[in-house]
């Protein structure tokens, strides 16, 4: 049984919804002991995520997306609004490496749990805040959700058909992007601490890390040009597009990278006359007549299966792929053979396939070891075993409603 790369790290995880849990689960996947902290009056809002009506028994244990985002983590509850809860929590901080949240910036200071306070119980603690806009600046206290970051970071503006309006990019990219960035920051800080003994405070803004991916900023800074919506077209290669295939809502994307590939493309199609048209022989010509080319290509692809198109064209060294819905990835032969999706069984939600490891490591392979925690599931493990509290202590804390295993939702008493 091989090691896990981060097996000696303990992380206190206050994160909720998507952005934070996406990051903490990466570290949990790599073997860190990630302790998800909730409170009876403040369960993770994602616990209702998914489609379970409240009439279902313990709907908060059935949200499929929550289950995917919180696998490999332990779960505890503690009421940080009460003095006794805070004292209990600080005992855990004293034996942990990292404290991580994605609340709006005033929350942790309001609880009296900012970096300066936490350092008092653990001088080398690493504290990370992951709010939408960071912990400073004029937008600091604006309510931030993922679609807001899509808009501010420019992603909405550059996504759309040529001459069309900005379109929603499918998901809120700032969430997972900031989660990945936060994970990177934590590991850099842990490495630094292993060399120097020093912890530190880290501020991860979804807005900033999303903006790093906007290479259109360089064009603007250099030439003053504002990036426009291009649909499926490419700035240099032509044709590139998304073409209908046989069946309803079935498509293939094709990129012809240069003149040599254009000739090969013609051969794959059986050299129909239009592929020999001299207007299309150069990339300038193909770009000029892109609309017409798109129609001609579509007339060919629409009678073919999308996977067949990929196979035919890739054999000839041309980049082509079917447009798959996320659910279709589950049965795509490449994903299956790579073993990317992993089966995981959850006590309430049953057995599902979850996106597995984001990358493969040769000597410390990782996997989904256990499912997302039930609410307060590991109270005993953390309070008895890590903090050495007695059974009486646990009972007293439960009676005082400092800890518990049932969330209190408004309108559900």
């Amino acid at each position, binding site marked *: 049984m091989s090691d896990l790369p981060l097996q000696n790290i303990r992380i206190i995880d206050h994160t909720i919804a998507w952005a934070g849990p996406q990051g903490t689960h990466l570290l949990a996947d790599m073997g860190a002991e990630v302790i998800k902290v909730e409170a009876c009056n403040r369960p993770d809002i994602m616990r209702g995520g998914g489609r379970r009506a409240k009439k279902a028994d313990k709907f908060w244990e059935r949200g499929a997306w929550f289950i995917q985002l919180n696998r490999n983590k332990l779960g505890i509850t503690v009421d940080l609004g009460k003095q006794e809860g805070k004292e209990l929590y600080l005992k855990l901080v004293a034996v942990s490496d990292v404290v991580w949240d994605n609340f709006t910036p005033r929350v942790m200071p309001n609880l009296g749990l900012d970096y300066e306070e936490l350092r008092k119980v653990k001088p080398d603690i690493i504290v990370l805040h992951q709010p939408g806009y960071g912990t400073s600046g004029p937008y600091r206290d604006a309510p931030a959700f993922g679609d807001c970051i899509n808009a501010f970071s420019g992603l909405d503006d550059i996504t759309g058909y040529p001459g069309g309006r900005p379109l929603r990019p499918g998901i809120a990219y700032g969430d997972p992007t900031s989660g990945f960035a936060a994970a990177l920051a934590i590991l850099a800080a842990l490495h630094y601490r292993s060399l120097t003994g020093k912890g530190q405070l880290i501020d991860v803004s979804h807005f900033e890390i999303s903006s790093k991916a906007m290479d259109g900023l*360089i064009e603007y800074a250099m030439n003053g040009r504002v990036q426009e919506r291009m649909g499926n077209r490419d700035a240099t290669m032509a044709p590139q597009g998304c073409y209908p295939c046989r069946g309803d809502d079935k498509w293939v994307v094709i990129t012809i990278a240069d003149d040599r590939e254009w000739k090969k493309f013609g051969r794959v199609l059986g050299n129909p006359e239009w592929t020999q048209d001299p207007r299309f022989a150069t990339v300038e010509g193909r770009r000029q007549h892109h609309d017409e080319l798109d129609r001609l290509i579509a007339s060919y692809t629409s009678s073919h299966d999308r996977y067949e198109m990929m196979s035919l064209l890739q054999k000839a060294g041309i980049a082509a792929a079917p447009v798959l819905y*996320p659910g279709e990835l589950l049965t795509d032969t490449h994903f299956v053979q790579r073993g990317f999706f992993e089966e995981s069984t959850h006590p309430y939600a049953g057995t599902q396939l979850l996106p597995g490891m984001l990358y493969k490591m040769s000597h410390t392979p990782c996997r989904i070891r256990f499912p997302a925690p039930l609410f307060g599931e590991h109270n005993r493990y953390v309070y008895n075993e890590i903090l050495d509290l007695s059974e009486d202590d646990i009972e007293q804390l439960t009676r005082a409603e400092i800890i518990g295993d049932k969330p209190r939702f408004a309108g559900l008493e």
Partner: protein
Amino acid sequence: MNIPKGSNGDMKSGALFDLKVIDLGHFIAGPYCASLLAGLGAEVIKVEQPGTGDGARSMGPFPGDEPHIEKSGLFNYLNQDKKSITLNLKSEAGKNAFRKLVAEADVLIENFEPRVMPSLGLAYETLREVNPSLLMTSISNFGQNGPYRDYKGYEITLSALGGVQAEIGEPDREPIKLGGQQLQFQAGLTAAFATMSAVCYRDVTDIGQHIDLAIVEIAATLKGAPIMMYQEMEHHRVRNGARIWQAQRGATDDLPPQVYRIPGPCIVILPCKDGYVCVDTELPPQWLALCDMIGRPELKEDSRFSWATHHEHADELDAILIDYLKTKTQQELFEEASAWRVPSAVVNNMAQLFHDPQHRARGFFVQVEHPALGKMDYPGHPFIMSETPWQQVSGAPLLGEHNKEVLIERLGYSEQELAAMAKDGVI
């Protein structure tokens, strides 16, 4: 401790000050990964093909649209604070020099197609004989194995196969890719994190390893929610233009109000007086506040816009909202909505993003000088660290700029050997 010097000659500081990285990457994913490590303080030596260098040098933007291998904006952005040497890895002499470099390095980043490194005789198994503690991070489109391993792929190809493209577009048209090169950047960021997870393990054990990243799997990870939803509901999310995907009927309307339950009635990009804004109500109290904000409190009780049925009346709601939004500017709306605690945002174009007040207040953009490009502002820190501030000081290196420094001073070649290598096209 022997702390390496940065590309500008100063002592390196930063969280990764002791790490030595070889950047064999090209275009975006590999170089972006290495640039994140450089900004965190690692010493990064870029190994480029003699004559042409990293392919990004041939891609713009260029000042005045005139191509020049020292003036690519993309290359400059992604390769700051790195050194550059040239090595022809197809030659024996080039391979020898590379192996010497690997012997002293901590990390090697590459994003070639999987057959390339083995075909050069530089596969991980070979390199670890030279350096057993080496961490080699390989980023590829489809991974180091599997039926699509050797397939060709660009951003659009990965977007299609990774489940990203299917959910973007107008309902009656072909699906489109995300603007720009989002998946390439995601890959670089993921690779930096992946590399660091191996560094942290090696800090304790001295064990090196090979890391295999597939961009298409990174894309699939981003689409975790619809993948789970498909298993719950056996239904795909429908493309819905500028509005959040269309809901199936009636699934979540009786959940408690503080529980997250997209798609709510109002997550949409709409035009206003001087551009577009995004209205992003994801919890019921936010929707109710929006109704009050636009002076239409009766909408709160309007059965058309309940959580269960709103998608059937989306056009009507759009029209009501646009009526209000068109009277105000992007900035006015953002401020007003913030005061009402309604999540909203300005749809920034690249010019607005460049001047964005939040970015400028936080010093997100950094001015960097380059001998061929002069002074320009670039996106800077990916996050802020209190003890180990982000390093972004020197412009990208000229092609082979550090051949002498690395090959002679570091690796011990003589001037004559270097001259011979140049003559033979090795450097």
